[in-house]
């Protein structure tokens, strides 16, 4: 393939790619996101390849391994195009049936269909599955349609058309104007208007300018950036090149979290392909604009998600933040003007250019435009990645898309914004999700993690969990963050161990104020949020721990006791076998008893008992 030197070349390329695509042609897509990988989708793909080869169907059927489809709960996921037949939890043993029935005879394999738990009805097409119905997948949707290692797949769906348009038909300031008018705000957590950031960076003094893609996705429970990079890396690259052109930068970096090897692999391939096509490096699409992108792997430090820490890390230094009296758009990487945006933000850019800012700004609320990808995880029936318009309610997300709470348990809270965010209670479920509304609750949008908690989750324990996380991840440079978080964690640990005292809650609130006000960067500045929101909405749980020495959710080991209900115990001995402490004894077929002095409260007995004879209080 010779390099693209003009828009005409690019159009020719589009044509030649499209010629090879037959929308009527059968295609088996197998989701190969990290979630489905963990379920063993590789073996399923391999089985399809062999089955198709054995039946000599290579000429009639394509097999495509795609990025994450989002519905991780039901993996491995297989979708047959063009009919969009949706098969879930597909195993190697199912492959022969899918080929012989669906591919050859257009029959549905009923046992692989998704069953709507509310109606009991089987659903055939992907778009009709309730999980997908209320979503608006303008950024994430293509993941399910393309092989991330194929640039042609991306081009066939209109990829790089926005770049061609920008380079040949728009001036940098026009691009900035479009992004400003679209209302796009940073998807990494801060929510700063993207167009304005670009403008600041463009106007800053300096000879060199850098653009950075922040893919150091550190919030536990958030994995949308990884899924975008893994599943549709070209959309991120295209966004970055457009941004670089608008800002006037010739060097970009993608800073990827160390734990994301597949993302690194797919982006590396994507950069190579873009170079070969003349979409990266020198004289992009013959426009005279040069831009190259380097990939850097992070070192596994959460604080490096903070822009100044990330830039320090890129320079080969400790990932410690600095005070932002001077913003990074003026003095960032190596003291040059630097524009940093998160993966999802970059992926929004080509869509805005293609569809226009008017179209884009029609989606969402007054101050939060477009869509947001959330990872819906925790105590929820439909775990997965969802993309919804801003302004949708939490209730719709959790109950309509997420399918509610497993095992008929009661919803307690949803945690958003990662360790910087907070827990939102049931009374606020009708809240319409956007940047402002989430901040008003004391939580925040963050990068988009949504961890659902049920009645069995202890909110004091959750606050302790996040502080423990932040204590480990605080870089230690400034005292309020390093010492304040440690002191708060000590108090919370005491409370969960039954040593809480009157006044602890007030002390936590006071410490929170100091840590939030005086920390150097956002890590410390927002660290008290999980504590403050749990106190605000679940103070009764704190009181129960402190005053009654009781953990209402039955989580904190020091405050619970396991015992055996002698009426229900059949003496089967299952618990005796699993108890690591030999704390349970009794004769066979006789009710057993549990020695409290030996019990370490590991919960193994409760897990194996089939007769609900183990009681946790």
């Amino acid at each position, binding site marked *: 393939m010779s390099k693209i030197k003009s828009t005409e070349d690019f159009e020719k390329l589009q044509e030649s790619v499209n010629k090879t695509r037959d929308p009527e042609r059968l295609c088996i897509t197998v989701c190969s996101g990290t979630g489905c990988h963990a379920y063993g989708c590789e073996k399923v793909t391999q089985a399809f390849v062999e089955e198709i080869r054995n039946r000599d169907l290579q000429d009639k059927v394509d097999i495509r391994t795609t990025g994450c489809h989002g519905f991780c709960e039901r993996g491995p996921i297989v979708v047959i195009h063009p009919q969009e037949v949706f098969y879930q939890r597909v195993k190697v043993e199912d492959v022969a049936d899918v080929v012989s029935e669906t591919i050859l005879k257009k029959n549905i394999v009923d046992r692989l269909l998704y069953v709507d738990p509310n109606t009991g009805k089987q659903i055939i097409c992907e778009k009709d599955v309730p999980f997908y119905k209320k979503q608006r997948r303008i950024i994430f949707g293509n993941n399910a349609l393309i092989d991330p290692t194929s640039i042609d797949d991306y081009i066939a769906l209109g990829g790089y058309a926005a770049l061609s348009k920008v380079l040949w038909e728009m001036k940098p300031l026009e691009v900035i104007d479009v992004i400003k008018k679209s209302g796009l705000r940073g998807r990494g957590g801060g929510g700063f208007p993207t167009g304005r950031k670009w403008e600041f960076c463009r106007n800053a003094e300096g000879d060199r300018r850098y653009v950075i893609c922040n893919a150091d996705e550190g919030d536990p429970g958030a994995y949308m950036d990884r899924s975008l990079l893994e599943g549709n890396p070209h959309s991120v690259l295209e966004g970055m090149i457009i941004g670089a052109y608008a800002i006037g930068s010739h060097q970009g970096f993608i800073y990827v979290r160390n734990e994301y090897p597949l993302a690194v692999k797919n982006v590396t391939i994507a950069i190579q392909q873009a170079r070969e096509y003349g979409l990266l490096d020198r004289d992009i699409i013959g426009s005279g604009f040069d831009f190259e992108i380097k990939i850097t792997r992070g070192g596994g430090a959460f604080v490096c998600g903070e822009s100044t820490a990330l830039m320090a890390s890129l320079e080969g230094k400790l990932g410690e933040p600095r005070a932002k009296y001077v913003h990074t758009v003026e003095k960032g990487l190596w003291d040059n003007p630097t524009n940093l945006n998160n993966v999802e933000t970059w992926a929004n850019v080509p869509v805005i250019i293609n569809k226009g800012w008017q179209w884009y700004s029609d989606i969402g609320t007054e101050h939060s435009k477009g869509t947001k990808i959330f990872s819906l*995880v925790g105590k929820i029936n439909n*775990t997965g990645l969802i993309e919804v318009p801003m302004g949708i309610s939490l209730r719709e997300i959790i109950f309509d898309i997420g399918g509610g709470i497993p095992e008929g348990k009661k919803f307690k809270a949803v945690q958003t914004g990662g360790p910087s965010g907070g827990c939102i209670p049931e009374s606020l479920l009708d809240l319409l999700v956007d940047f402002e509304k989430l901040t008003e609750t004391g939580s925040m949008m963050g990068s988009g993690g949504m961890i659902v908690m049920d009645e069995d989750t202890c909110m004091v324990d959750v606050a302790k969990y996040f502080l423990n996380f932040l204590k480990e991840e605080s870089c230690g440079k400034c005292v309020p963050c390093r010492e304040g978080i440690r002191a708060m964690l000590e108090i919370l640990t005491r409370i969960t161990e039954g040593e809480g005292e009157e006044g602890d809650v007030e002390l936590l609130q006071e410490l929170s104020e100091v840590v939030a006000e005086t920390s150097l960067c956002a890590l410390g500045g927002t660290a008290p949020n999980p504590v403050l929101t749990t106190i605000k909405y679940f103070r009764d749980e704190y009181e129960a721990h402190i005053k009654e020495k009781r953990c209402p959710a039955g989580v904190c080991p020091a405050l619970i006791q396991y015992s055996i209900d002698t009426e229900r115990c059949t003496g089967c001995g299952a618990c005796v076998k699993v108890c690591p402490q030999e704390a349970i004894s009794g004769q066979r077929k006789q009710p057993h008893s549990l020695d409290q002095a030996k019990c370490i409260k590991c919960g193994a007995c409760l897990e194996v008992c089939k007769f609900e004879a183990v009681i946790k209080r």
Partner: protein
Amino acid sequence: MNLVLVDDIIARYRWEKAAIIAILQDIQREFNYLPQEALTYAASRLAIPLTQVYSLATFYRAFSLKPRGKHLITVCLGTACHVRGAVRILEKLERELGIKAGETTDDMRVSLETVNCLGACALGPIVVIDGQYHGQMTSVKTDSILKKLRKL
């Protein structure tokens, strides 16, 4: 110790000081940890003070200054795994292996580590053994994977 490997790694990054973190990552991949000799050598080749290399090696979670075991068990402690009881699984592994998270068994067979989130939350709680994901872990499942691991 084969320091040629270290030279090769540094050369691949064109002797650039700013690439030190990537260089350390590659050294770790080569040796399974960061041997003191390799660090000293890399520092001198790049003309970076050893103290600076040491501070990087101890700041970033990805690095280990101690040799790691033949098998690596990683327990995900992401929020989703946490609310589904990941701590109990970690504690069980610690008890059974007789080591704490971050340590390696005396016979150098197994290292136990934790990770903040693997982003495979549908499978939580998750334990990864030598790159293989084991989802929806329970105490009983932990026993059976440990049994398999002992036979490896």
